[in-house]
């Protein structure tokens, strides 16, 4: 038995893979996990003009044949967009492009945002009913973490974790201490994570200046701006934890925890002053 730990720059952040298993298998297992993450990057990058996502966004309403994992991810994104009342919204790529936060691939007419109904998914293809721009950034990193964990398990690893810039999933007989970076930069201890996933999103206070080291952006719904704070969600899968941090930041304070719970996660409250 051996443990192997590696880190690579992927998905716009630093991705760490840790695996414990039979000595000869740990190297190939870690390689397989990173391979899944590289594939996720290729398929779902909004920046890459030839990713599955960009091909779908640029198809001007025509159906596009997509990778099976893309279709799975679209189904999850659409379902959560609907179930969360669009608090999680994978169709607001247009708003982000107009803001300059995402590149404009010049695919023609563009709506700021849409709804779950704009996404039509068949067995091997999908199309957009209106000119919305999908962005999968809200859950793709978590989903890539889940795929990487699955690859580690499939190659015989008995324990380990994958941490993609704070989107973290732990499996097997290990308890991983987790600290959270708070809004003022300080670290607080969240506890020891076991057999679950955890994700956090930072929403800056209006008074704070942007720090280009942390470029992520959460956009609210029409009437609601995201609340400042660091929002952490615990869930069984990393895609869900990732996606629900967005819901947590946008939900009204009195409904936040219950809404996250209804959608299958557990909110760890923000430590703001």
């Amino acid at each position, binding site marked *: 038995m051996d443990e192997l730990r590696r*880190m690579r720059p992927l998905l716009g952040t630093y991705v760490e893979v840790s695996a*414990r298993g039979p000595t000869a298998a740990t190297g190939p297992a870690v390689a397989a996990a990173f391979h899944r993450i590289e594939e996720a990057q290729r398929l779902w990058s909004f920046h890459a003009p030839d990713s599955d996502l960009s091909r779908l966004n640029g198809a001007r309403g025509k159906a596009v044949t997509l990778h099976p994992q893309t279709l799975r991810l679209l189904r999850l994104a659409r379902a959560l967009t609907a179930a969360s009342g669009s608090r999680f919204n994978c169709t607001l790529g247009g708003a982000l492009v107009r803001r300059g936060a995402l590149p404009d691939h010049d695919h023609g007419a563009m709506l700021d945002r849409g709804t779950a109904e704009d996404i039509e998914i068949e067995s091997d293809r999908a199309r957009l009913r209106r000119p919305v721009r999908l962005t999968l950034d809200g859950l793709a990193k978590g989903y890539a973490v889940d795929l990487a964990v699955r690859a580690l398990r499939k190659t015989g690893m008995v324990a380990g974790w994958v941490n993609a810039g704070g989107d973290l999933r732990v499996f097997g007989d290990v308890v991983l201490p987790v600290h959270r970076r708070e809004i003022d930069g300080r670290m607080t201890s969240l506890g020891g994570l076991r057999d679950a996933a955890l994700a956090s999103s930072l929403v800056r206070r209006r008074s704070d200046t942007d720090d280009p080291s942390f470029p992520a952006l959460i956009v609210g719904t029409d009437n609601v701006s995201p609340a400042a704070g660091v929002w952490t969600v615990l869930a069984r899968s990393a895609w869900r934890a990732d996606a629900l941090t967005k819901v947590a930041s946008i939900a009204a304070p009195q409904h936040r925890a219950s809404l996250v719970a209804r959608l299958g996660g557990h909110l760890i409250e923000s430590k703001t002053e």
Partner: protein
Amino acid sequence: MKTHDWAALLLPTIALVSPVYATDYLSVPQAQRQLFPEAQVFLDAPLSLTSEQRDRIKSLSGLRQRWDEQKIWRAEKEGKLQGWFIVDDVIGKHEFITYAAAISPEGRVLGIEILSYRETHGGQIREPGWRKHFMGKTLADPFKLDEDVPNISGATLSCRNVLDGVKRLLALHKLFLVNG
């Protein structure tokens, strides 16, 4: 929807909050073997750069070449060049990273591996004896699960600094290594 016992998934731990997060992943020889598995030998070929040469790297890549000396090795098999193994440092606002890039003879990136990762944070150092809680993991330490280096969640730290570093190294390669 099945409710989970969330308390069983996030256990209370002793809160040792260290100001620096550190992990060493690979030594230089390990990273060489990882990035060039077919290579038989790695020849030390460091580059010393004049300020004029550093300016040319900046013009080509848009990025500043901080170091006068760049640590470079030729990866060779049976006397033939397989590519270049280059070690570089990133000193970011929040992070200090040593990484290695493998570049093919034609100037294609073959792989990137982080050798060591250190993340710091603003905010006060809480305890006077903080050094003893320094939770660095070196390669000599066995992984003890209870004392494992804490992982960090929070806003996503961009890896832009390493990607820019690689972009700069590609310019360095194009200017000074291609005919090497």
